């Protein structure tokens, strides 16, 4: 049997349904359109939150389309927790399956990038590793070590030039996006997330480190993935983004 709150909830999210029974205007009269105040609050406040969270997606499809499509999204995927600042983790998947936007194949990855930026902003703080520690190590010791990464680090791997598309829509004077796929490393040097395009093999290397591989093994994995892998370039991104947290020395050979 459905409870009063499940009837209320279902009718809130479906304007085609009748208003639940047993409601009034406080004066002994009918409830009229008073229930719509709650319907409007729920839908418009959630769409507003998604506008704040996904400005590049909004720009790409236009503000009017955005509100209409988010009204569909939020009914299928209402928030599962009251932390509205990170509501929208299901949006990329929803956009992937949303037929009217199938011609914008990159849109789900732009949404993933924006969600990752929000998660990074709110992620736990961590102390950055002093890069001098890496410079002072003998190469063999360095390759045998593992590194834990900052909780604010995010990796977006995309077959699209996702960073270029994001920047073109969000930053004044940014160039037209190229055609090449882009993997994006999100770091948070202080409080504001920062983005960098990882060169060939860079994302593979970061993912391998995150998976617990030694620096040497991650290097080999990245090199297998991309022969032109540049270790110092990706380490530069991670160090300047305060994304290396702690060095765990390897076992002596």
């Amino acid at each position, binding site marked *: 049997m459905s*409870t*009063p*709150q*499940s009837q*209320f*909830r279902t009718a*809130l999210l479906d304007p085609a349904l009748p208003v639940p029974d*047993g*409601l*009034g*205007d*406080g*004066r002994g*009269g*009918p*409830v*009229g*359109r*008073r*229930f*719509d*105040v*709650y319907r409007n*609050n*729920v839908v418009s*406040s*959630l769409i507003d*939150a998604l506008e704040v969270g996904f400005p590049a997606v909004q720009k790409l499809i236009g503000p009017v389309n955005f509100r209409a499509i988010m009204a569909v999204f939020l009914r299928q995927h*209402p*928030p*599962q*927790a*009251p*932390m*509205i*600042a*990170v509501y929208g983790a299901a949006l990329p998947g929803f956009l992937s399956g949303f037929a009217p936007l199938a011609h914008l194949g990159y849109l789900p990855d732009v949404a993933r990038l924006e969600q990752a930026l929000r998660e990074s*902003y*709110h*992620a*736990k*703080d961590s102390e950055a590793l002093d890069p001098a520690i890496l410079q002072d190590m003998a190469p063999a010791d360095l390759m045998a070590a593992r590194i834990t990464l900052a*909780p*604010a680090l995010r990796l977006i791997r995309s077959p699209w030039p996702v960073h270029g598309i994001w920047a073109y829509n969000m930053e004044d004077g940014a160039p037209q996006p190229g055609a090449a796929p882009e993997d994006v490393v999100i770091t*948070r040097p202080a*409080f*504001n997330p920062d983005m960098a395009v990882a060169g060939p093999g860079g994302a593979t290397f970061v993912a391998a480190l995150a998976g617990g591989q030694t620096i040497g093994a991650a290097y080999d994995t990245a090199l297998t993935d991309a022969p032109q892998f540049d270790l110092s370039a990706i380490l530069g991104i991670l160090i300047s983004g305060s994304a290396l947290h702690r060095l765990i020395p390897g076992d002596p050979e």
Partner: protein
Amino acid sequence: MLDDLKRPNISYSALPNGVGVGYKAQHFTDLMQDAAPVEWLEIHAENYMGGGGRPLAQLRHLSERFAISVHGVGLSIGGEGALDADHLARLSHLVGWLNPASLSEHLAWSTHEGAYLNDLLPLPYTADTLSRVCDHIDQLQEAIARPMLLENPSSYLSFDASTMAETEFLGEVAARTGCGLLLDVNNVFISANNLGMDARAYIDAFPVQHIGELHLGGHDEDETQVGAPDPAPLLIDSHGREVANPVWDLLAHTLDRSGPRPLLIEWDADVPDWPVLRGEAVRAAAALATSRVPA
């Protein structure tokens, strides 16, 4: 989550009987430079439930200068189901880390069957609702090891099933659970308009001895026509403008009964620059000062 994060060095044990404002990040610098007459700040708990970053760093700075009221909007105390254990844990964690001067939540529900609806939804005032709300408050107060304040809602509709007045319901909750009450004067004004009741009579019936905090905020008239024969447009609790003059009058009436209490200005939408919000705080401080003069 917050375990590794540096805790604030100072804690305030209670809200001062002065003026507070709802904290907005764009006012951080103004508040840290010269906040007068603002003595305390209210934050929305759910905005500080991430692991770290700027929100918690700012909150730590603020809490070393101001008494902080943590105001939850998402616990769904009136929900038919059990409290969301994860959310209760997040709230307890924040309270444990910050040790705020006050914690408040709403007489409302917002989560049902795992979906959070981001609004404060209404409840029928019945014996069943009373026992459920009290159970949930007991559970929260046990988790945070301190009493909470429960806020009266702004209402847009009534329930045929209600058997108690809202003031009676709130008084009963306070008596059974030992919680305090947060009286939102603007909400009283809105509900009175929307449900055809007398706002002053509501204040006169309110169990003022339990009031731990007062709220003021701006409201708007509903843009859409409510079905006839509604005598007046609905008022919407928008928190997007100055406090209306009749709400200031209702505050004065409230203070006559309650005496001075911690008084908050809420402005959450179309947030103005600091001087405008401070102007509201100055007016609130004057109202409090008047209520301190013996009759």
